[in-house]
């Protein structure tokens, strides 16, 4: 079994339901996110549009976080999930430095690394990840990539524009996007400017990385 995710960006409407469901399900502390939706505005008025990109751990086949973890706190499960053992983690932040997708953070409450686990605890009970259940338009498609009859496999067979983030890193992500552009997937393809955020006074709590 090789579990994977696919997000159809044609369907995603940026409601952030997945983000909230993830927060609640996994008790993700304030100021940290296992899953977040990035908004990028594209074009020049009046020809403008807003793109939405749900971002979470890519559960790479060749995961740099698993490789650099000195104590195997990050490890592969048999179903392909890159899981984390928070009791084992020493908080060296090596995984934070290694993940090319910025998907790992230091939990300010436990002072250990944390990230999306594809809701491994729910999957163990034969349930879907919380974000999949919450999505009102079924933009999140989850399933076994090795099973040709699974929803995700069928979806990938039907669509030719299946992409991953940063393929040049050689990580072989198990998280795919349909309908993505450079603006969605390449962090350098869009500007980040003061005063252009929807909420200009976003505050972040200390994550323990201030040394």
């Amino acid at each position, binding site marked *: 079994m090789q579990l994977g995710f696919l997000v159809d960006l044609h369907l995603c409407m940026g409601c952030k339901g997945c983000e909230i469901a993830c927060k609640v399900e996994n008790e993700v502390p304030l100021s940290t*996110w296992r899953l*977040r*939706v*990035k*908004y*990028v*505005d*594209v*074009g*020049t008025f009046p020809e403008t549009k*807003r793109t939405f990109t749900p971002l979470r751990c890519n559960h790479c086949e060749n995961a*740099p976080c698993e*490789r*650099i*973890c*000195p*104590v*195997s706190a990050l490890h592969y499960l048999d179903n392909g999930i890159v899981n984390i053992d928070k009791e*084992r*983690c*020493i*908080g*060296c*932040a*090596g995984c*934070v*430095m*290694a*993940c*090319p*997708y*910025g*998907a790992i*953070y*230091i939990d300010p409450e436990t*002072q*250990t690394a944390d990230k999306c686990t594809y809701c491994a605890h729910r999957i163990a009970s034969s349930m879907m990840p919380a974000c999949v259940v919450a999505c009102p338009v079924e933009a999140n498609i989850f399933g076994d990539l090795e099973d040709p009859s699974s929803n995700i496999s069928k979806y990938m067979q039907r669509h030719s524009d299946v992409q991953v*983030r940063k393929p040049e*890193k050689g*990580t072989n992500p198990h998280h795919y996007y349909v309908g993505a552009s*450079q*603006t969605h997937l*390449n*962090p*350098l*393809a*869009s*500007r*980040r400017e003061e005063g*252009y*955020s*929807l*909420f200009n006074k*976003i505050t*972040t709590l200390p*994550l*323990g*990385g*201030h*040394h």
Partner: protein
Amino acid sequence: MVHETLAATNAVVTLDVAIPDIFWGWYVTMNMWAKSIGTGLIFMLFLLLKKNSSEMTALRTPTIIVSFVMMNIFLLFTWLDLHQMLRMWHIFFYPHWTSAITVGAWMATLFVGLEALMIAVMILKKNTELFDKLLFWVTLLAIPVTLYTAGIMAEATARELWQMPTESVQMILAATLSGSAAMILLAGSKLSDETKNFFGAILGLSALMAFIIYMSEYIFGAMKAEEVAAILDYVKGDGEYATMFWIGQWVAYILPMLLVVLSRVSKSSSILSLAAILAIAGLWVVKHVWLVIPQLLPLS
């Protein structure tokens, strides 16, 4: 940056909550800086043994003690940087050998243990023959202990600026630069002028080679990848770390190079000592800038 894409799409991030922190900050800079001096002194002591062992008489004990202290500073800051310090023992009981952090922790522990043994050999037994035998093995071990941090940086796949073997070369050069500088300061008048000039030459050449590599990264790095180009923007023009970058380059490399030449021309050991102090101080700045700038880039 992807300038073509920007021009075509005028894409602006309007909502994102990317991880904002610099996770490896000055604690890790202290780690790299102290380790460079610690292992560098061992390299220099071994060179002195091979070049002129008679000059080692008064230097064996102080050099190994200073190296031991610097290695313990390195270990202390490595430990302090952990968010779960009390779980440090996991590295030894749950080691994951694909991680350069694990390999390095084990080697550094062995290294410091051997240094403690060498100190005991000198202070308790005054056995210089055994000390010199141990020095050979400790020097061999000092090579991977110096290099493993480059392995960690290379394993940090997200940080395109840090590449192997460039970082390995910079680690070795940092050790020879700071080791020779520390030896010049530590030895004082205990070394002959010829030997001092020898260490001065190592200092000057290490500075020259490290400077060339940084400049090649600075000038040509952007040609390799857009991520590198974006990272180097932080040290170019009015970039956030441009001033600090050039302060580091001048203090660690350019001024020491010039002062080494001047000390040879004027036969002044005080100028050489000044070069040594600047090199050690500047190395901290250089290492810090190179550590921080890749962390400023948004990854998502």
